């Protein structure tokens, strides 16, 4: 019985350890990076692209001879939009595959599920999404902007004379941490400006919600109340974004009457839409496909070429902020590793201080020693007829990121 058991146990061990054995064969001259982006499930539509961008960036670096004399090998996975699976695969990549860094997560919940794993294993997770902030782990690099340094400028713009002088706000969000935190901070911000509570309204819908008729009706009646220019602050995510926009347009509400500030709205969300009726609605990110400068032109060209060459199942002419952020992440990591002359997380982390990278957005990303946040520029985009965004406003320089919001 005993030996039988032992064998059975070792057997199952071998089964689970198999991928590690397979790979470590040629691991000597390579350094591994792990991806945690779902290519199936609810997030697949937008998240899946990032796997390919990371690969593209790695190829780029390998083309220049790799890092510290090692080729980068990218391991992708499919957490299938199943949050605990992110943690599971993250653990596996750190402990079995010994990846030097993880690049992954879109929703806050997936990040939060991986967070304990990277902290327990002192790993490094590059997180390419703008998010609710109020978090600062030494094991996570927050490559995109926290609200205080991205959302507030956009809201300010809309409230100011160049915008529409917005006085009243209808907040519609998916019911989870990112929208709730954003809205909490916005409310705090408005309070600080002496705007009365009666001037805003807050509604949350479940994930993947699509029947927006009632809500759009409510927006219309909210807009017809007196009290000044209304706007919609939209923090729904995923397929709810196009569904909301479609209903909004079909009910004949124009951006010039009630503009939408879609905080998670990206070029990809317009893919399925006829944007003629949506012209003028706004979003705000640290990168827009319409960003000027030949760095961006080159990036767009590279991506198009990569899609063609590798038969990537995503549109060659759509590029969204998180893609660029993921691309930046790889380069930031490579720069840090090269600067540190090592792949050990503590050294790499030390090397972040004073790091800078000129990315496609046209701004130069910089990191300081105080936290793992990255200074990015801010763009405000305006939907155009061609399912894209025109750059309506962009910040003169890259503001310093504020991890913890002073409001709320």
């Amino acid at each position: 019985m005993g030996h039988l058991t032992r064998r059975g146990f070792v057997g199952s061990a071998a089964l689970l350890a198999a991928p590690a054995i397979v790979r470590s064969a040629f691991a000597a001259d390579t350094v591994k990076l792990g991806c945690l982006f779902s290519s199936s499930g609810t997030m697949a539509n937008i998240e899946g692209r990032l796997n390919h961008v990371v690969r593209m960036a790695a190829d780029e670096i390998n083309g220049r001879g790799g890092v510290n004399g090692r080729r980068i090998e990218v391991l992708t996975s499919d957490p299938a939009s199943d949050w605990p699976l992110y943690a599971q695969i993250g653990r596996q990549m750190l402990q079995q595959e010994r990846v030097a860094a993880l690049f992954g997560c879109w929703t806050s919940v997936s990040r939060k599920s991986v967070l304990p794993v990277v902290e327990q294993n002192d790993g490094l997770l590059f997180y390419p999404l703008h998010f609710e902030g109020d978090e600062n782990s030494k094991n996570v690099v927050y490559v995109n902007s926290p609200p205080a340094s991205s959302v507030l400028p956009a809201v300010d713009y809309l409230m100011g004379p160049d915008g529409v002088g917005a006085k009243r706000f209808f907040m519609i969000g998916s019911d989870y941490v990112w929208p709730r935190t954003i809205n909490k901070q916005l409310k705090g911000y408005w309070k600080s400006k002496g705007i009365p509570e009666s001037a805003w309204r807050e509604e949350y819908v479940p994930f993947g919600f699509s029947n927006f008729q009632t809500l759009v009706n409510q927006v219309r009646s909210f807009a017809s109340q007196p009290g000044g220019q209304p706007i919609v602050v939209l923090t729904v995510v995923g397929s709810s974004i196009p569904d909301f926009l479609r209903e909004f347009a079909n009910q004949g509400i124009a951006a010039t009457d009630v503009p939408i500030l879609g905080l998670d709205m990206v070029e990809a969300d317009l893919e399925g839409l006829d944007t003629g009726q949506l012209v003028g609605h706004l979003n705000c990110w640290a990168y827009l496909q319409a960003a000027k400068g030949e760095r961006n032109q080159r990036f767009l060209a590279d991506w198009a070429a990569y899609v063609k060459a590798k038969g990537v199942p995503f549109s060659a002419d759509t590029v969204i902020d998180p893609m660029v952020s993921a691309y930046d992440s790889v380069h930031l990591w490579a720069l840090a590793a090269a600067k540190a002359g090592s792949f050990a997380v503590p050294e790499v982390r030390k090397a972040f201080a004073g790091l800078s990278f000129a990315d496609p957005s046209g701004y130069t990303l910089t990191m300081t020693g105080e936290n793992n946040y990255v200074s990015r520029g801010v763009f405000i985009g305006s939907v155009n007829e061609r399912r894209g965004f025109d750059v309506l406003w962009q910040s003169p320089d890259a503001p310093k990121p504020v991890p913890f919001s002073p409001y709320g």
Partner: protein
Amino acid sequence: MSGAVQTGLAASARVRRAPRDPLIAVLVGLCLAAAIGLVLGRPAPYLVNAVGQLAAFAILAVSLDLIWGYLGILSLGHGLFFAIGGYVCAMHLLAHGTVVTGTLPDFVQFMSWKGLPAYWAGLEHAPYALLLALGLAGLVAFLFGLVAFRSRVNGVYFSIISQALVYVAMLLMYRNDTGLGGNNGMTGFPLLFGWPMGSAGAVTGLAVAALLALAAVLAGTRLLVGSALGRRMLACRDDETRLRTLGYATTRLKLQVWCLSAMIAALAGILYVPQVGIINPRVLAPDLSIEIAVWVAIGGMGRLGGAVIGAVLVNALKFWLSAAMPEAWPFLLSGLVLLVVLVLPNGLLDLAGLRLRPTWARGAR
């Protein structure tokens, strides 16, 4: 329709003779040996953790097989009871952590509440939490079972309604107002009985606990199905009306086993959550509840050991492939299900040559 057709499982005479078949004994032995192996062998923490999770899934599968394989009730809502266990466990870990570290869970903060909601009171005490988890699962199961069984809801009706139940629960838990972290659920558990989470000690401890629990559950359920009650379960599964006209209150019988199964599922949840370090409404997704049934069907239903084998095999493959061959996994899973459903009516145990069904019974399939 008679029970036999309803459950799609014509009786398997071998079931009751199982005490004479070695599978359960072997599995229990395996669990114990694996536990010892983990303690002495000290393999990579990733592997330890994986083994622990597999054990938790196996317990969950056994709980489903108990009512599906032996009572003919296919619940597509067992994720609910798993989640109840998991959530209460997470609440305990957070409450305990709050007491020790003094920092509130983050969802309390972004909902801008002053402190933990009132119903969290006392959850920092492990025994109370354990009681609450099992009790709550039992209670929910009792209420649902009572209405369902009394109005003779069975077969696919029961399955689809139980699925609706878990779906409702998922929608509720996605709401942040529910006070359990909404979509983010709960994570970032600092401590486990004073051990820092994720430390080798905690990981091994949890895995060993899960393995021992699995061994205990296997032994216990085996005794149950071998008993007179077990024979009545089979009778009820194959022809409930017949059993009733012989003077047996089948509603009570079903209710008892249903609640027991729910509590075992809750136990699995309790063991699962501290190992993955997160619980959120995703465990209430209808798909997951169906997957549990898939584990059982693949391993071989109506045979507790089969449930264990199925759960371990499918999840081990899932862990492995979703990292090694992400594209292939869903196809493999669906293929596996179809293969089992069409070719191996008793699951992979058929391959193992352990025929469960004598020739006379196959006609009924």
